[in-house]
Structures are given as structure tokens and as C-alpha cells.
């Protein structure tokens, strides 16, 4: 009898203790669109999550759910996270925008951070990186290096984010190579290695010798490596494992500083709803090492452009630029405003094809 009582008390004490401990920790949740091992987009977000753990140690606890489909199911995952006690939730794909807003309305004391979207609320911030700055450098290298003058581009979904990347890359490829053509394929997925590889193969079969991708896995690079004599770029992550193959450079998303800053803001109680859109300058967008496959002069030009963008001396969308239909978008020397860029739904002059709705 005594023993039982003792055990019960001990168990109760332990329960209270762990309960109290759980109270002290800030629970930070992450909702991912792909698996953490995709080697690209989600992989980099997860590196950010690990950086938060490393920075705050015992003060935070992180949880994540990977491969969450964009749609109603995302709402369920976020709701569950909030019910489980997460006080800060990062939702890391464009398609999580409406689910994030809906769930945030139900949990006013939980802070939400949505990547690449444009809808905000008192407890919903948005953040994104100016990937188009990196795309400009990619376009420059691609335009200089293509021999067939055909550049293949694998798009995911026709959203402003992706269209911006296509335009930026195209403008800078055309600038150095007036004969360059873009062939654009929409995969309608962020992550499907087989389909991404198929798309890359199709583009290569149709004459592209440079493959640019806006999907999350390394599959297009694998397909390019298999085909041989094709160059490509790491997307979202360095993808350095293909550096001795097709990958000549990369755009790296560096989310860690942002995630650490936002987690600290919640811990300090200074969190407010904000809109962050940082590029190469603040370090949210990195350019992976340019390999020796790129001629030295092209590499030097690319790095010079990177510096100019970082210092704010050059904006990738500087006029004169026309829209696809020939109408004037930006006059000579005019720089695009963020509003137009965020809602970009048109191609610039020279790109063939129409944007799916």
C-alpha cells in the first residue's frame, strides 16, 4: 500500500515537473511542402530549423511535418500543431497561404510566419527572399555559356514568384546573347523527382543545353548529368554534390538568420506582424561557388553583378523593359517597384508562350 502510494506521488510529481518544463520551452513548428531530404527548398528550411535549435538550446523545442500537400490538409496539420502547443509556426510554401490565414484566425495567440505569400494578419507575418537577384546572375552565365542558344526552364506553378525568376533570368540572358530562346515547361508540382527529370530530359531532347529549374529536388541536375554536356544550377540549396557535373553555380536560400531573429522576437515578446523581403545584400540569398567550367571572364562579370546587386547599385529589373505584348513597362533607368514585382503576372518582351492562369 505504502509503495503504491509512493509510486503514485512520484509519478504525479514527475508529471507536474515535465508539465512545468514543457511550459518553459517555446515550441516552434515548421510545415514543409516536401521531404527534408529533398536536397533543395525544404532541406534549406530544415537547416534553418536546426539553426534555431542550436541557437536557443533548451529554451525552444522544434517540431516539423514534412511533405504536407498544399490545400485543405495543410490546415489540419497547422491546427494540430497549434493545438499541440506550438506558439510560433513557419509555413514554408506559397500554397500554404490561405490555410495559414484561416488557422491563424482561430489561434490569435499563436504567431504564424508564411513564406513567399502576400496575405498578412495581426499574428501572421510574411517573409521571402529576392530569388530574382540570383536569377539575374544565373541568366547572365546561362546566356554566355549556351551554344545551342536554347535555355530550358522548369517552372513549378505559374505564380508571381516563379514568373519573376523566369523574367529576371531571361532579361540577363538576352542582354549578353540576343539570340537566346527560353523553352518553358510547367511541371505543376514543387516536388516530384521523376517528373522533374522527365521535364529536364524533354528540354534537353529539344535542344536546350542549359537547364534552369524552379522545382525543389536535384532530379533535373541528375538528368542533366546523365545526358552529359549540359549545365544547370543548384536551386534553393547549393546542390554541390553535382559540382563536378552539370552544376556550375547555385542560388542558396539562407533562412537561418531570419528564423533565429523571429524566434528571439517571440521569446522577448517583441514579435509583431512584419513583411520581410531580403536579397543578396542582407544574405538571405546566396550565390553558390561558380565552378571552373565557367570561363574566368564570365565568372568575374557574374561576381561583379552580385556585388552591384548586394550594394544596391544595380536592380535586376531596370528599364528600358517592355512587356511581352510590346507595351512599355519600365522607361529607361526606371526601377521596378516591389508591388509590381510581388504581383508579377506577365512575361517580358522576347519570351515566347503564354502564362497559364
Amino acid at each position: 500500500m505504502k509503495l503504491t502510494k509512493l509510486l503514485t506521488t512520484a509519478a504525479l510529481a514527475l508529471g507536474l515537473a515535465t508539465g512545468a518544463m514543457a511550459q518553459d520551452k517555446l515550441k516552434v513548428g515548421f510545415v514543409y511542402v516536401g521531404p527534408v531530404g529533398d536536397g533543395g527548398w525544404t532541406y534549406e528550411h530544415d537547416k534553418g530549423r536546426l539553426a534555431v535549435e542550436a541557437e536557443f538550446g533548451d529554451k525552444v523545442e522544434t517540431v516539423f511535418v514534412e511533405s504536407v500537400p498544399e490545400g485543405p490538409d495543410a490546415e489540419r496539420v497547422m491546427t494540430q500543431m497549434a493545438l499541440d502547443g506550438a506558439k510560433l509556426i513557419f509555413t514554408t510554401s506559397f500554397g500554404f497561404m490561405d490555410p495559414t490565414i484561416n488557422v491563424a484566425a482561430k489561434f490569435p495567440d499563436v504567431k504564424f510566419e508564411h513564406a513567399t505569400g502576400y496575405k498578412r494578419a495581426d499574428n501572421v507575418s510574411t517573409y521571402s527572399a529576392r530569388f530574382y537577384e540570383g536569377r539575374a546572375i544565373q541568366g547572365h552565365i546561362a546566356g554566355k555559356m549556351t551554344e545551342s542558344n536554347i535555355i530550358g526552364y522548369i517552372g513549378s506553378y505559374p505564380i508571381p514568384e516563379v514568373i519573376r525568376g523566369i523574367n529576371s533570368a531571361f532579361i540577363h540572358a538576352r542582354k549578353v546573347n540576343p539570340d537566346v530562346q527560353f523553352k518553358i515547361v510547367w511541371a505543376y508540382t514543387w516536388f516530384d523527382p521523376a517528373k522533374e527529370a522527365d521535364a529536364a530530359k524533354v528540354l534537353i531532347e529539344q535542344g536546350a543545353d542549359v537547364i534552369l529549374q524552379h522545382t525543389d529536388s536535384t532530379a533535373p541536375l541528375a538528368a542533366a548529368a546523365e545526358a552529359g554536356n549540359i549545365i544547370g544550377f543548384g536551386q534553393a540549396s547549393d546542390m554541390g554534390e553535382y559540382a563536378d557535373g552539370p552544376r556550375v553555380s547555385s542560388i542558396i536560400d539562407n533562412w537561418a538568420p531570419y528564423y533565429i531573429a523571429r524566434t528571439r522576437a517571440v521569446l522577448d515578446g517583441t514579435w509583431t506582424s512584419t513583411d520581410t523581403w531580403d536579397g543578396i545584400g542582407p544574405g538571405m540569398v546566396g550565390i553558390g561557388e561558380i565552378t571552373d567550367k565557367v570561363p574566368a571572364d564570365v565568372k568575374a562579370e557574374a561576381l561583379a553583378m552580385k556585388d552591384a546587386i548586394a550594394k544596391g547599385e544595380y536592380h535586376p529589373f531596370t528599364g528600358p523593359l517592355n512587356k511581352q505584348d510590346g507595351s512599355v513597362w519600365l522607361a529607361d533607368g526606371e526601377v521596378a517597384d516591389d508591388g509590381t514585382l510581388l504581383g508579377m503576372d506577365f512575361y517580358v518582351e522576347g519570351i515566347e508562350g503564354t502564362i497559364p492562369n
Partner: protein
Amino acid sequence: MDLSSINPILLLASLMVAATPLLLAAVGELVVEKAGVLNLGVEGMMITGAICGFAIAVNTGNPLLGVLAAAAGGAVLSLLFALLTQVALANQVASGLGLTLFGLGLSSLIGQGYQGIRPPSFPRLNIPGLSDVPVVGRIFFSHDLMVYLGLIIVTAVWFMLKYTRAGLILRAVGENHEAAHALGYKVVRIRIMAILFGGACAGMGGAYISLIRVPQWTEGMTAGIGWIALALVVFASWKPWRVLLGAYLFGGVTVIQLNLQAAGVAIPVEYLAMSPYLITILVLVIMSADKSSAPASLGRIFHASR
């Protein structure tokens, strides 16, 4: 719009490549369902096969050993399903879904450290004479062995189900397991064998993606092909030839729509993107107007109590 940039020979060749993983997984599942078992774990078995095959191929440098390992990996995982549903008499739907989740987790565990590695390339069949024939040679006679293996398996399954005693018994078990049991056939044993075959086929289908189609290992890389295979079996009304047709249609339209997009054809991309699903379903639904129905015991639990 520039259709001339599409090379029809390469198009037909890549059509067969795109169809093969789906074909392998679907024909395996067809045999399982013909035996009266509904295994929803195809996706899990595929992804497990993909990483088992990849790991062994990388470590031994022999892609053929990799394919064998993939078949073994898929079969071992399906054994778990067999134990749950045939021995422990668990619910097949729940067990199958569990198998998919388990397979996805297990594969990413095994796959740690295999990211970004390039597997040994798969030998391409080169038949002297035949492979050199212009056009036809490139389309039909210069693929990797797996493409032909897929076709051989479909033929063998069709032949076995239609013309052999073993096939008759398998169908009997699937149509009415109590009658089959009364006739003295070992229902559970036959079903376990069918499940293992299904697992091996799914595993090979997965390995085809990780070793040939992409080729690399990425977590979750099958990205839903297992589910398409499951749907394909139903739409093909459990007939091997229709599975073949469906898989080639699906793979074919997938590749063609990408080609049309790249060539800048003026069909809205949304329609192109949905076309593989739409066309495959449409064709197979029209064909299944002959009212062929599912095996009568499909998904029902068998226990020899009477």
C-alpha cells in the same frame, strides 16, 4: 509553336521509360488483387524498393544486383503486410495505408547518406543488327533491360492467369475464398505468395525510378506513382493488357504533354497537365464498358473456421 523541335523517335523511346515504373507496380498489384487482397501499400513498397536497389547498386557497383535487391526489399516489406492481414487477420485497408507510411519512413532512414550520389549507369540493351535499324531500333531495341522485363512480366501474368492451372487457382481464391478453401487450396499460402510477388514488382518499379529514370536517391521520390498504379488496376478492370495500355498511355501522355509545352503549342498548359489522368481514365473507362468487375473476395478477410 514549333513542332519540328520534337523528335518523335526520342519521344517514343522516353515514353516507354516513363511508363515502366507504373507498369511494374500496377501488374504486381493486379496479381495481388486477383488473389482477393487489397494492398494499398504500393507506394511504400515502391519507395522501399527504390532505396534498397539504389543502396545495393551504389555499394556493389552493379545495377542488376540493385534491381534484385529492390525486388527483395519490396517483397520483405510486403511480407509485413501479409503477416498482418493473412495471419493476424488485420484490416487490409488500414494495414496497406500503414505500410505506405512505414515504407516512406523506412526508406528515408535507409537513404541517409545516399543523397547526391550518382548510381552506376544501367546497361542499355544492344542487340547487334536490331538496335542499329534506323528509327525502329532506337524506339524498340535499345532500352535498358527493365523495360523488357516489364513487358515480359505482363505477358507472363496474362498467360498464367488465363491459361494455367495456377492462374485458375489464384483467381478462384480471389473470387470465392471459401469455395477455394473447400476444394482444398491453401488460401492463405496462395495469397501470401501473391502479396510477395506484388511487393517484388513494386520494389522493382521503385528502383527503376531511382536507378534509371531520374537517376538518384531523393526522399519521397516516388511522389504518388504507387497510388496511380492502384487506380490503374481498377480502371484496367483487373486485366493485364489493359494495365499495359493504361501505363503506356499515362507515361506517354505525360511525356508528350511536356514535349508540347516545351515546343510552345498553343494549348493551355492546365489542360496539358491534366491530360495524362484524363485520357488514361477516359480510355480505360470506355473499354471497361463490358462490365468486368472486381474479384468478388477483394479485401475480405479469410479465416478457415468453417
